Protein backbone atom coordinates (compact mmCIF):
# COMPACT_ATOMS: atom_id res chain seq x y z
CA UNK A 1 0.00 0.00 0.00
CA UNK A 2 1.36 3.36 -0.97
CA UNK A 3 0.85 6.37 1.24
CA UNK A 4 0.32 9.96 0.18
CA UNK A 5 2.32 12.71 1.73
CA UNK A 6 0.02 14.65 4.08
CA UNK A 7 0.97 18.23 4.87
CA UNK A 8 -1.27 19.80 7.49
CA UNK A 9 -2.04 23.47 7.00
CA UNK A 10 -4.77 25.96 7.80
CA UNK A 11 -6.84 27.40 4.96
CA UNK A 12 -6.11 31.05 4.19
CA UNK A 13 -9.71 32.05 3.64
CA UNK A 14 -13.01 30.90 5.05
CA UNK A 15 -15.33 30.02 2.19
CA UNK A 16 -18.21 29.19 4.50
CA UNK A 17 -18.67 32.64 5.94
CA UNK A 18 -19.59 35.48 3.60
CA UNK A 19 -17.70 38.63 4.48
CA UNK A 20 -20.54 41.06 5.08
CA UNK A 21 -21.59 44.04 7.15
CA UNK A 22 -24.53 42.84 9.26
CA UNK A 23 -25.52 46.39 10.25
CA UNK A 24 -25.82 47.48 6.62
CA UNK A 25 -27.80 44.34 5.87
CA UNK A 26 -30.11 45.11 8.74
CA UNK A 27 -30.78 48.70 7.69
CA UNK A 28 -31.35 47.80 4.06
CA UNK A 29 -33.77 45.00 4.91
CA UNK A 30 -35.72 46.80 7.60
CA UNK A 31 -35.83 49.95 5.47
CA UNK A 32 -37.25 48.02 2.54
CA UNK A 33 -39.77 46.33 4.77
CA UNK A 34 -40.86 49.60 6.32
CA UNK A 35 -41.17 51.23 2.90
CA UNK A 36 -43.37 48.40 1.64
CA UNK A 37 -45.51 48.46 4.76
CA UNK A 38 -45.95 52.23 4.55
CA UNK A 39 -46.84 52.02 0.85
CA UNK A 40 -49.42 49.27 1.38
CA UNK A 41 -50.76 51.06 4.43
CA UNK A 42 -51.31 54.31 2.57
CA UNK A 43 -52.73 52.65 -0.52
CA UNK A 44 -55.25 50.73 1.56
CA UNK A 45 -55.78 53.85 3.65
CA UNK A 46 -56.86 55.72 0.54
CA UNK A 47 -59.11 52.81 -0.28
CA UNK A 48 -60.71 53.24 3.15
CA UNK A 49 -61.16 56.98 2.54
CA UNK A 50 -62.72 56.15 -0.80
CA UNK A 51 -65.19 53.66 0.65
CA UNK A 52 -66.24 55.64 3.73
CA UNK A 53 -68.54 58.17 1.99
CA UNK A 54 -70.53 55.21 0.65
CA UNK A 55 -71.14 53.71 4.09
CA UNK A 56 -74.41 55.15 5.30
CA UNK A 57 -74.92 56.06 8.95
CA UNK A 58 -77.55 53.32 9.10
CA UNK A 59 -75.05 50.71 7.95
CA UNK A 60 -72.49 52.04 10.37
CA UNK A 61 -74.96 51.67 13.21
CA UNK A 62 -75.64 48.06 12.26
CA UNK A 63 -71.96 47.24 11.77
CA UNK A 64 -70.88 48.57 15.13
CA UNK A 65 -73.90 47.79 17.29
CA UNK A 66 -71.49 45.84 19.48
CA UNK A 67 -69.91 49.07 20.78
CA UNK A 68 -73.28 50.18 22.07
CA UNK A 69 -73.90 46.84 23.75
CA UNK A 70 -70.49 46.91 25.37
CA UNK A 71 -70.96 50.41 26.77
CA UNK A 72 -74.62 49.88 27.75
CA UNK A 73 -73.90 47.45 30.55
CA UNK A 74 -72.76 49.90 33.20
CA UNK A 75 -73.92 53.45 33.83
CA UNK A 76 -71.41 54.21 36.56
CA UNK A 77 -72.19 57.92 36.92
CA UNK A 78 -75.93 58.33 36.19
CA UNK A 79 -76.11 61.98 37.33
CA UNK A 80 -73.13 63.20 35.29
CA UNK A 81 -74.14 61.05 32.36
CA UNK A 82 -77.63 62.62 32.33
CA UNK A 83 -76.15 66.14 32.33
CA UNK A 84 -73.66 65.32 29.58
CA UNK A 85 -76.33 63.66 27.47
CA UNK A 86 -78.60 66.73 27.86
CA UNK A 87 -75.76 69.03 26.81
CA UNK A 88 -74.93 66.85 23.82
CA UNK A 89 -78.61 66.63 22.82
CA UNK A 90 -78.87 70.42 22.89
CA UNK A 91 -75.86 70.85 20.60
CA UNK A 92 -77.10 68.13 18.28
CA UNK A 93 -80.73 69.36 18.17
CA UNK A 94 -80.05 73.08 17.75
CA UNK A 95 -76.77 73.18 15.82
CA UNK A 96 -74.98 70.03 14.63
CA UNK A 97 -78.00 68.15 13.22
CA UNK A 98 -75.80 65.21 12.24
CA UNK A 99 -77.51 62.02 11.02
CA UNK A 100 -76.61 60.11 14.18
CA UNK A 101 -78.25 59.26 17.47
CA UNK A 102 -75.52 60.23 19.89
CA UNK A 103 -75.08 58.55 23.23
CA UNK A 104 -72.60 59.59 25.91
CA UNK A 105 -70.85 56.97 28.03
CA UNK A 106 -68.69 57.82 31.01
CA UNK A 107 -65.76 55.54 31.67
CA UNK A 108 -63.65 55.61 34.80
CA UNK A 109 -60.02 56.22 33.84
CA UNK A 110 -57.35 58.84 34.51
CA UNK A 111 -57.01 59.46 30.79
CA UNK A 112 -57.78 63.09 29.94
CA UNK A 113 -59.59 62.31 26.71
CA UNK A 114 -62.86 61.67 24.95
CA UNK A 115 -63.35 59.17 22.14
CA UNK A 116 -65.66 59.08 19.13
CA UNK A 117 -66.66 55.45 18.64
CA UNK A 118 -68.54 54.15 15.58
CA UNK A 119 -72.32 54.27 15.73
CA UNK A 120 -72.51 57.61 17.58
CA UNK A 121 -71.15 56.43 20.93
CA UNK A 122 -69.03 59.09 22.60
CA UNK A 123 -66.90 57.90 25.50
CA UNK A 124 -65.79 60.50 28.04
CA UNK A 125 -63.18 59.51 30.62
CA UNK A 126 -63.56 60.66 34.21
CA UNK A 127 -60.03 62.08 34.05
CA UNK A 128 -61.33 64.66 31.62
CA UNK A 129 -64.49 65.44 33.61
CA UNK A 130 -62.36 66.14 36.70
CA UNK A 131 -60.37 68.79 34.84
CA UNK A 132 -63.28 70.61 33.24
CA UNK A 133 -64.34 73.90 34.89
CA UNK A 134 -67.28 75.22 32.86
CA UNK A 135 -70.14 73.95 30.74
CA UNK A 136 -68.76 75.85 27.77
CA UNK A 137 -65.48 73.93 27.97
CA UNK A 138 -67.32 70.64 28.03
CA UNK A 139 -69.60 71.73 25.20
CA UNK A 140 -66.53 72.54 23.15
CA UNK A 141 -64.97 69.13 23.78
CA UNK A 142 -68.24 67.38 22.85
CA UNK A 143 -68.56 69.57 19.75
CA UNK A 144 -65.01 68.65 18.81
CA UNK A 145 -65.98 64.97 18.96
CA UNK A 146 -69.07 65.73 16.88
CA UNK A 147 -66.65 67.25 14.36
CA UNK A 148 -64.98 63.84 14.07
CA UNK A 149 -68.39 62.34 13.24
CA UNK A 150 -69.12 65.09 10.72
CA UNK A 151 -65.84 64.26 8.94
CA UNK A 152 -66.25 60.54 9.71
CA UNK A 153 -62.72 60.41 11.13
CA UNK A 154 -63.75 57.70 13.55
CA UNK A 155 -64.25 55.29 10.66
CA UNK A 156 -61.03 56.35 8.95
CA UNK A 157 -58.99 55.75 12.08
CA UNK A 158 -60.63 52.40 12.62
CA UNK A 159 -60.14 51.37 8.99
CA UNK A 160 -56.45 52.19 9.07
CA UNK A 161 -55.91 50.48 12.39
CA UNK A 162 -57.64 47.42 10.97
CA UNK A 163 -55.37 47.45 7.91
CA UNK A 164 -52.27 47.74 10.01
CA UNK A 165 -53.28 44.91 12.30
CA UNK A 166 -54.11 42.73 9.30
CA UNK A 167 -50.76 43.35 7.61
CA UNK A 168 -48.84 42.84 10.81
CA UNK A 169 -50.66 39.65 11.74
CA UNK A 170 -50.35 38.20 8.23
CA UNK A 171 -46.62 38.89 8.01
CA UNK A 172 -45.36 38.14 11.47
CA UNK A 173 -48.10 36.64 13.61
CA UNK A 174 -49.79 38.46 16.44
CA UNK A 175 -46.89 38.99 18.81
CA UNK A 176 -43.59 39.74 17.17
CA UNK A 177 -40.71 42.14 17.45
CA UNK A 178 -40.69 43.03 13.76
CA UNK A 179 -44.42 43.73 13.87
CA UNK A 180 -43.83 46.15 16.72
CA UNK A 181 -40.93 47.79 14.89
CA UNK A 182 -43.00 48.41 11.76
CA UNK A 183 -45.91 49.48 13.93
CA UNK A 184 -43.87 52.25 15.53
CA UNK A 185 -42.73 53.47 12.14
CA UNK A 186 -46.29 53.55 10.90
CA UNK A 187 -47.82 55.23 13.93
CA UNK A 188 -45.42 58.15 13.45
CA UNK A 189 -46.66 58.68 9.92
CA UNK A 190 -50.21 58.18 11.15
CA UNK A 191 -49.81 60.95 13.71
CA UNK A 192 -49.52 63.76 11.16
CA UNK A 193 -52.59 62.36 9.50
CA UNK A 194 -54.60 62.59 12.69
CA UNK A 195 -53.34 66.12 13.43
CA UNK A 196 -55.11 67.38 10.35
CA UNK A 197 -58.27 65.65 11.52
CA UNK A 198 -57.96 67.25 14.94
CA UNK A 199 -57.66 70.69 13.37
CA UNK A 200 -60.76 70.14 11.26
CA UNK A 201 -62.67 68.89 14.28
CA UNK A 202 -61.52 71.99 16.21
CA UNK A 203 -63.00 74.21 13.56
CA UNK A 204 -66.28 72.33 13.59
CA UNK A 205 -66.36 72.45 17.40
CA UNK A 206 -65.86 76.21 17.35
CA UNK A 207 -68.81 76.74 15.02
CA UNK A 208 -71.01 74.50 17.19
CA UNK A 209 -69.96 76.29 20.37
CA UNK A 210 -70.81 79.67 18.84
CA UNK A 211 -74.14 78.33 17.63
CA UNK A 212 -75.08 76.91 21.04
CA UNK A 213 -74.11 79.84 23.27
CA UNK A 214 -73.88 82.74 20.84
CA UNK A 215 -70.17 83.15 21.68
CA UNK A 216 -67.03 80.99 21.85
CA UNK A 217 -65.92 81.68 25.43
CA UNK A 218 -64.25 78.61 27.02
CA UNK A 219 -62.99 77.13 23.75
CA UNK A 220 -59.31 77.45 24.65
CA UNK A 221 -59.67 77.27 28.45
CA UNK A 222 -59.23 73.54 28.64
CA UNK A 223 -56.06 73.43 26.53
CA UNK A 224 -54.70 76.49 28.29
CA UNK A 225 -55.03 74.78 31.67
CA UNK A 226 -53.51 71.58 30.30
CA UNK A 227 -50.51 73.42 28.90
CA UNK A 228 -49.89 74.98 32.34
CA UNK A 229 -49.73 71.55 33.95
CA UNK A 230 -46.34 69.92 34.18
CA UNK A 231 -45.05 67.07 32.02
CA UNK A 232 -47.93 64.70 31.29
CA UNK A 233 -45.58 61.70 31.28
CA UNK A 234 -45.18 59.02 28.66
CA UNK A 235 -48.70 57.79 29.24
CA UNK A 236 -50.46 61.06 28.53
CA UNK A 237 -52.31 59.62 25.56
CA UNK A 238 -54.21 62.79 24.98
CA UNK A 239 -51.06 64.70 24.20
CA UNK A 240 -49.45 62.22 21.87
CA UNK A 241 -52.18 62.16 19.24
CA UNK A 242 -53.49 65.68 19.68
CA UNK A 243 -51.55 68.72 18.41
CA UNK A 244 -49.38 70.46 20.97
CA UNK A 245 -51.61 72.45 23.29
CA UNK A 246 -50.02 75.81 22.61
CA UNK A 247 -50.19 75.25 18.84
CA UNK A 248 -53.77 74.32 19.27
CA UNK A 249 -54.67 77.37 21.31
CA UNK A 250 -53.00 79.60 18.72
CA UNK A 251 -54.83 77.85 15.94
CA UNK A 252 -58.20 78.18 17.67
CA UNK A 253 -57.57 81.87 18.40
CA UNK A 254 -56.68 82.45 14.75
CA UNK A 255 -59.93 80.79 13.71
CA UNK A 256 -61.91 82.89 16.19
CA UNK A 257 -60.37 86.04 14.74
CA UNK A 258 -60.92 84.92 11.15
CA UNK A 259 -64.56 84.09 11.78
CA UNK A 260 -65.13 87.29 13.80
CA UNK A 261 -66.42 85.48 16.90
CA UNK A 262 -66.46 86.87 20.44
CA UNK A 263 -65.95 85.47 23.95
CA UNK A 264 -68.41 86.10 26.76
CA UNK A 265 -69.27 84.88 30.29
CA UNK A 266 -69.15 81.14 30.96
CA UNK A 267 -71.79 78.86 32.48
CA UNK A 268 -70.85 76.61 35.40
CA UNK A 269 -71.08 72.84 35.06
Amino acid at each position, binding site marked *: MTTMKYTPRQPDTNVNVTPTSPLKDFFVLSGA*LLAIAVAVFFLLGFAVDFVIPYISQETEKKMFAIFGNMAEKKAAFPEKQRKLQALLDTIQRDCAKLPYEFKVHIKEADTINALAMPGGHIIVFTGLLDKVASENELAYILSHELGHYANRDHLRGLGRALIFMTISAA*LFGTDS*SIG*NMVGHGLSISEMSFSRKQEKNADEFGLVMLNCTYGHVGGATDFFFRMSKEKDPGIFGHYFSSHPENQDRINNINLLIKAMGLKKEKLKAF
Partner: protein
Amino acid sequence: MDLIIFLILLALGYTAGTIAEKSHYRSIEKRERDLLRLPAITMKRIPYSVGRIQSATMVHGSVVISVDYFKRLLAKLRNIFGGTIKSYESLVDRARREAILRMKEMAGNANIIVNVRIETATIGKNAHRKGVGCIEAIAYGTAVVVKK
Protein backbone atom coordinates in the same frame (compact mmCIF):
# COMPACT_ATOMS: atom_id res chain seq x y z
CA MET B 1 -41.59 52.28 25.71
CA ASP B 2 -41.68 49.02 23.77
CA LEU B 3 -39.49 50.64 21.17
CA ILE B 4 -36.86 51.59 23.76
CA ILE B 5 -36.70 48.04 25.12
CA PHE B 6 -36.50 46.73 21.59
CA LEU B 7 -33.62 49.05 20.67
CA ILE B 8 -31.73 48.19 23.86
CA LEU B 9 -32.12 44.48 23.14
CA LEU B 10 -30.98 45.06 19.59
CA ALA B 11 -27.89 47.04 20.62
CA LEU B 12 -27.07 44.53 23.34
CA GLY B 13 -27.47 41.63 20.93
CA TYR B 14 -25.26 43.29 18.38
CA THR B 15 -22.40 44.33 20.68
CA ALA B 16 -22.40 41.24 22.87
CA GLY B 17 -22.81 38.97 19.85
CA THR B 18 -19.98 40.64 17.94
CA ILE B 19 -17.59 40.55 20.90
CA ALA B 20 -18.38 36.90 21.63
CA GLU B 21 -17.94 35.94 18.00
CA LYS B 22 -14.62 37.73 17.61
CA SER B 23 -13.11 36.22 20.75
CA HIS B 24 -14.40 32.78 19.78
CA TYR B 25 -12.79 33.03 16.36
CA ARG B 26 -9.48 34.08 17.94
CA SER B 27 -9.62 31.05 20.22
CA ILE B 28 -10.58 28.73 17.34
CA GLU B 29 -7.73 29.91 15.15
CA LYS B 30 -5.16 29.59 17.90
CA ARG B 31 -6.23 26.06 18.87
CA GLU B 32 -6.44 25.01 15.23
CA ARG B 33 -2.77 26.02 14.81
CA ASP B 34 -1.81 24.14 17.98
CA LEU B 35 -3.61 20.96 16.88
CA LEU B 36 -2.38 21.07 13.30
CA ARG B 37 -0.10 18.07 13.98
CA LEU B 38 -3.20 15.84 14.38
CA PRO B 39 -4.91 15.26 11.01
CA ALA B 40 -8.65 14.63 11.04
CA ILE B 41 -9.71 13.09 7.74
CA THR B 42 -12.89 11.65 6.25
CA MET B 43 -11.25 8.52 4.74
CA LYS B 44 -12.56 5.20 6.00
CA ARG B 45 -9.30 3.34 5.32
CA ILE B 46 -6.31 3.81 7.55
CA PRO B 47 -3.15 4.67 5.64
CA TYR B 48 -1.05 2.33 7.82
CA SER B 49 -0.66 -1.44 7.80
CA VAL B 50 -2.82 -3.21 10.40
CA GLY B 51 0.22 -4.42 12.34
CA ARG B 52 1.30 -0.90 13.19
CA ILE B 53 -1.98 0.09 14.86
CA GLN B 54 -1.64 0.23 18.61
CA SER B 55 -5.19 1.37 19.43
CA ALA B 56 -8.33 2.71 17.76
CA THR B 57 -10.94 4.55 19.85
CA MET B 58 -13.96 6.58 19.07
CA VAL B 59 -13.60 10.29 19.81
CA HIS B 60 -16.24 12.97 19.64
CA GLY B 61 -16.76 16.64 20.38
CA SER B 62 -19.97 18.59 20.51
CA VAL B 63 -20.87 22.20 21.08
CA VAL B 64 -24.06 24.24 21.37
CA ILE B 65 -24.04 27.85 20.19
CA SER B 66 -26.92 30.27 20.59
CA VAL B 67 -27.98 32.97 18.21
CA ASP B 68 -28.16 36.54 19.50
CA TYR B 69 -31.14 38.91 19.27
CA PHE B 70 -29.66 40.92 16.43
CA LYS B 71 -28.78 37.92 14.28
CA ARG B 72 -32.19 36.43 14.85
CA LEU B 73 -33.91 39.63 13.73
CA LEU B 74 -31.69 39.82 10.67
CA ALA B 75 -32.60 36.23 9.81
CA LYS B 76 -36.31 36.97 10.30
CA LEU B 77 -36.02 39.88 7.89
CA ARG B 78 -34.23 37.59 5.42
CA ASN B 79 -37.11 35.18 5.80
CA ILE B 80 -39.38 37.74 4.18
CA PHE B 81 -37.17 38.69 1.25
CA GLY B 82 -35.30 35.44 0.72
CA GLY B 83 -31.60 34.97 0.00
CA THR B 84 -28.68 33.58 1.96
CA ILE B 85 -28.92 34.08 5.70
CA LYS B 86 -25.42 35.41 6.13
CA SER B 87 -25.92 36.20 9.78
CA TYR B 88 -26.23 32.47 10.56
CA GLU B 89 -23.25 31.37 8.44
CA SER B 90 -20.62 32.35 10.98
CA LEU B 91 -22.68 30.66 13.68
CA VAL B 92 -22.68 27.29 11.94
CA ASP B 93 -19.03 27.71 10.94
CA ARG B 94 -18.01 28.36 14.54
CA ALA B 95 -20.02 25.39 15.78
CA ARG B 96 -18.48 22.96 13.28
CA ARG B 97 -14.91 24.07 13.88
CA GLU B 98 -15.33 24.09 17.66
CA ALA B 99 -16.77 20.57 17.53
CA ILE B 100 -13.78 19.32 15.53
CA LEU B 101 -11.39 21.02 17.94
CA ARG B 102 -13.05 19.36 20.94
CA MET B 103 -12.91 16.02 19.17
CA LYS B 104 -9.19 16.51 18.54
CA GLU B 105 -8.64 17.50 22.17
CA MET B 106 -10.37 14.27 23.22
CA ALA B 107 -8.04 12.25 20.98
CA GLY B 108 -5.02 13.19 23.14
CA ASN B 109 -1.79 11.72 21.74
CA ALA B 110 -3.38 9.92 18.77
CA ASN B 111 -1.58 10.16 15.44
CA ILE B 112 -4.62 10.53 13.20
CA ILE B 113 -8.41 10.65 13.35
CA VAL B 114 -10.12 8.85 10.46
CA ASN B 115 -13.70 8.53 9.27
CA VAL B 116 -14.61 11.95 10.64
CA ARG B 117 -18.26 12.93 10.39
CA ILE B 118 -19.95 16.20 11.34
CA GLU B 119 -23.62 16.52 12.14
CA THR B 120 -25.75 19.45 13.19
CA ALA B 121 -29.00 19.65 15.08
CA THR B 122 -31.21 22.48 16.30
CA ILE B 123 -32.03 22.56 19.97
CA GLY B 124 -34.98 24.06 21.83
CA LYS B 125 -36.72 24.94 18.62
CA ASN B 126 -40.21 25.07 20.05
CA ALA B 127 -39.58 25.73 23.70
CA HIS B 128 -42.16 28.20 25.05
CA ARG B 129 -43.55 28.73 21.59
CA LYS B 130 -40.78 31.20 20.75
CA GLY B 131 -37.73 29.38 19.40
CA VAL B 132 -34.65 29.60 21.59
CA GLY B 133 -32.58 29.25 18.46
CA CYS B 134 -29.40 27.31 19.21
CA ILE B 135 -27.44 25.00 17.03
CA GLU B 136 -25.56 21.89 18.09
CA ALA B 137 -22.66 20.59 16.05
CA ILE B 138 -21.23 17.18 16.80
CA ALA B 139 -18.07 15.78 15.23
CA TYR B 140 -16.98 12.17 15.68
CA GLY B 141 -14.35 9.85 14.29
CA THR B 142 -11.89 7.09 15.09
CA ALA B 143 -8.66 8.14 16.75
CA VAL B 144 -5.77 5.85 15.83
CA VAL B 145 -2.47 5.52 17.70
CA VAL B 146 0.32 4.08 15.55
CA LYS B 147 3.41 2.21 16.82
CA LYS B 148 6.67 3.93 16.04
